[in-house]
């Protein structure tokens, strides 16, 4: 079974203001984008479970001209609080890489 790291050439995460994290999955080509971007393992619901947030707050966008799936979710705690492990959210993509599609 294909993993995210197999079908994407680049996956990144970043803060989008102090209250949101946004994740961009760049698929290797149009065929892989069309085959896998709608996978249930990458749905708003699945992402919400993975990051421990409310699915109703998750924004999900297919961006076909870039073969990109963009998913944004509210941070469980705002940037820089008492328990901050990743100030800019730049490492949050890592847990996506091993997801099986």
């Amino acid at each position: 079974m294909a993993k995210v790291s197999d079908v994407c050439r680049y996956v990144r995460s970043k803060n989008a203001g102090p209250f949101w994290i946004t994740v961009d999955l760049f698929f290797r080509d149009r065929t892989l984008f069309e085959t896998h971007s709608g996978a249930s393992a990458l749905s708003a619901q699945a992402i919400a479970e993975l990051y421990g947030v409310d699915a109703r707050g998750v924004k999900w966008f297919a961006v076909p001209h870039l073969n990109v799936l963009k998913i944004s979710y509210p941070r469980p705690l705002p940037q820089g609080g008492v328990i901050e492990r990743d100030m800019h959210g730049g490492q949050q993509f890592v847990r996506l890489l091993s997801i099986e599609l």
Partner: protein
Amino acid sequence: MSGVRLQNTVNVMVPVGALGTGVRQSNLDAGLARGAHVIACDAGSTDSGAAYLATAQAKYSRDAVKTDLRLLMIAQAKAGIPLLVGTCGTAGTDATLDWTRDIALEIAREEGLNPRIALLYSEQNPADIAKRAVAGQVTPLAPITDVDPATFLGCDHIVALMGPEPYIAALEAGADIVLGGRTTDTAVLAAVPIMRGAHAGAAWHSAKIAECGGLCTRKSRLGGVMMRVGADAFEIEPLDPDNICDPYSVSSHMLYENSDPFELIEPGGVLDVREARYEAVDARTVQVYGSRFNPRPYTMKLEGAAGGPFQTIMMVGIQDPKVLDDLDRFLAQMEELMAERVRNVLGDRIGAYDISLRAYGWNAVSGKVIGPREPSPREIGLLFVATAGRQADATLIAKTCNPLFFHMPLDLEMELPSYGFPFSPAEIERGRVYEFKLNHVVHVASATELVRMTFVDAPEMAHG
């Protein structure tokens, strides 16, 4: 590639993504030679955390900002075109705008320059914003849902994000240089194209693409870009002749640090790029058609931050293979023993507190329990973070936990090990935790209602 360039464009040189990160003289020379009508950049964002807003301190060093600003001011004077700098001093507070003003005046004196400088202040009094909240003029943005006046009163500093209108007003009043407080990244770049009647959608969209300088190019370390905004489209090209913009590098920048890839909400409307088409017009320039700007009632986003509790930290390095082979149990046990020791030794003397252990090299970034199937790490750096209402209490907690942090064996009946402290004293007073408190917009009757504009003439100050 059509090769047909846009005519009668308004050209904005964006030499750098943030003032103080390193302007290249060769970029400025190229931009002026290629017909820049204005130099514009910003000098901050919320990106670096709440501390800069809560304390009204700049992130970059005074020397770094002065080095960049000197090059920009000399280029401004030489070409006789305006220079706009938004979000001065990282968070765009009144204090950091004044800090930037003083640097500019010092440069003017040293270089014998004579610019008319406009200052745009957009910091807000928390009590005034609380009143506006009570009056129903403030709306929360997701994920925040409430508009409690106490939230605003609890902020150390609040800034409102300006649009392009105050910059336009300053230029129309004769400014050579405009230094702004907190401004949307895009507004400072879009101001002159909008002032001169270029296409609004193209002005805002090109500004979003250029906001981080070279990040929309293929070789971002080569510096900034030029935006050329026309009657129905825009072009974007790198300033360095060896750099390239292509449809991919340009269009993918819409994704960056933006939770929505198609819409960007600005003070007086919404940029919509759903219908945008990106085409290479030559080997290094991209033309973009189809951007739209849909006007909406004017709002200004609010940012507010405050200092919270205090932290004291310690760190040890651990290489002992027995500990590393059973790390999850080791960490759980240490956390439990520390809580017990603080309870027994300090009791009720301190109020609410938190102890957090982060094993770098194992799971510090994710915070998730790894489980036994993973291979053991070669070594870890174990970070201890005590958080309490006062710095002295956080330090008291750290000192109380020190013996466990230094000597706790994996099995408590074993001989006492000693882990590798890198410092003495072991504890470091890290200071406060700073937090963003606001994600709201304030509804205003005009773009300048919450903005104060003043002028300063460099020579007067120099002799005053």
